[in-house]
């Protein structure tokens, strides 16, 4: 089972990202579960969302405390939230930032991958809504979900031109991070 924890802020679409990852994993023939860390939604407040992916039906309902992957949608969160808490030593943290992984000087044995998802989103969508770019990046670093499935889940949620632009953002992030991962 792959366990993913997403750190974002209210309004950044963390919950949507977890849901779309689950939809994409299911589209890839896997079982998946996505849920928010149930809170009172407020714009800008730190939020958590979770996603589990497995080859068999998922029964556990606890929150994820020892993730294989941590996704950080807003790097300023790292000033106040211990986003690396419980991350498996061989796990991966994916951070939305223009900085390189080595610039961040994180105290972890886990793999650190960065992706300028907000810049990619601004370019593709004209708005800083980077959760679809982050999904592409997740596909790129993990290979746990195929990019084709990511693309289908984005197009399903955002039909038409909005879907095209979001897929474009996801593809750019996918290609960038895939290079880093290799």
């Amino acid at each position, binding site marked *: 089972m792959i366990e993913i924890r997403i750190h974002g802020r209210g309004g950044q679409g963390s919950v949507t990202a*977890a849901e779309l990852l689950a939809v994409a994993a299911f589209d890839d023939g896997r079982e*998946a579960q996505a849920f928010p860390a149930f809170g009172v939604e407020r714009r800008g407040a730190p939020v958590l969302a979770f996603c589990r992916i497995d080859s068999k039906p998922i029964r556990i309902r606890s929150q994820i405390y020892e993730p294989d992957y941590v996704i950080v949608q807003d790097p300023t969160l790292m000033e106040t939230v211990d986003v690396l808490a419980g991350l498996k030593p061989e796990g991966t943290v994916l951070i939305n930032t223009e900085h390189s992984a080595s610039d961040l000087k994180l105290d972890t044995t886990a793999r650190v991958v960065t992706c300028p998802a907000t810049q990619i989103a601004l370019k593709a969508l004209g708005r800083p809504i980077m959760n679809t770019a982050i999904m592409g990046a997740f596909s790129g670093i993990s290979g746990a979900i195929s990019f084709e499935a990511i693309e289908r889940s984005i197009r399903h949620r955002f039909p038409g031109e909005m879907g095209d632009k979001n897929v474009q953002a996801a593809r750019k992030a996918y290609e960038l991070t895939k290079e880093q991962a290799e």
Partner: protein
Amino acid sequence: MRKMIEGSRAVAEAVGLCRPDVISAYPITPQTHIVEDLSQMVADGDIDAQYVRVESEHSAASVCLGAVAAGSRAYSATTSQGLMLMAEVLYNIAGMRLPLVITGVNRALSAPLSIWNDHQDTMALRDTGWLQLYAENSQEVLDMHIQAYKISEDDRVLLPVMVCMDGYVLTHTYESVDMPTQEEVDAFLPRYDPLYKLDPDDPYTLGAFADPSLYQEMRYEIQQDALGSKAVIKEAARDFKASFGRWMGDVLDPYQCDDAETIFIGLGTVVGTLKEWVDVKRGQGEKVGALKLRCFRPFPLEELREALGNAKRVVVVEKAVGVGAYGIVAAEVRAALYGQANMPPVTCAMAGLGGRDITFETFEEMLKRAQAGESDFFAGMRAELLEAS
């Protein structure tokens, strides 16, 4: 068709497939996406129902009462304080013997204000005359609604059914379900054909005045039919399996219980986490099992005796507190086992209140304390908060 959807959406679609004539709800926090989705489906013309938006949950229940009395199939959903506000009408619906299904989305009660999950709301309504079923996952809650109408409308029952579903943990979780087709549901659940209904051309009185010469017999009949509904619930589960190929238990659903020394009892989604933990413990050579109490009303007394007969120890994972007494479920499990030969000790472990996460560590604590002979306790407590108070 198998698809990945939110738990609330799965319920909304299942309710739509049951072809309700009337849906009534009050759109306030705490509410769920269930009635939001249903209102959209009605507005889009996907469901041929009348959607009545009302000014309170008391009115939502009253609209459903009137709709069923007039011979319609009706539906509502609410949670927490909303369920409390419905309480008076819920007794009336059961007393008038009106078949109705509502979703009781489980959330904590105020005060303090909490929007998170536990079972204190529906547990407070256990003696209303409603049957109560508790669902473990999205597939089960979807299937349970279809079964619930069949059970409720059965001439041998004619009592309303509350399908209990963990707030957030199930309502807001995306997971895969197999959504049946309209044709499949129609074949399983025929259109509602009431024995009695309000009709101006053939008038009769519902919920009339009953003086002391009558009331007690009416309560007796509700009691007899509620107890008898157990057979109908089992039948519905069997028939559902024959039609849809799915089985998630009838009144109970045992998991690794046959040779279990310690059996954990749970209701709702906590059972999924329990099953996963049981596998871990079994891997360590410990004989634990999980028993899902799928049906709380009627209370499956004989079935519990049978299922727990060989256990050395029973732990009830209790998500509601019978304040001033014991955990509500544990008290009933103890009563069921009272006087039985080799009655195992029943530990009441209260946990998960107001949305506190229940993890493997919570179960480990429960097991350890039960083994040490503790009988009633709160698990997963924050000692530092208690010390500060």
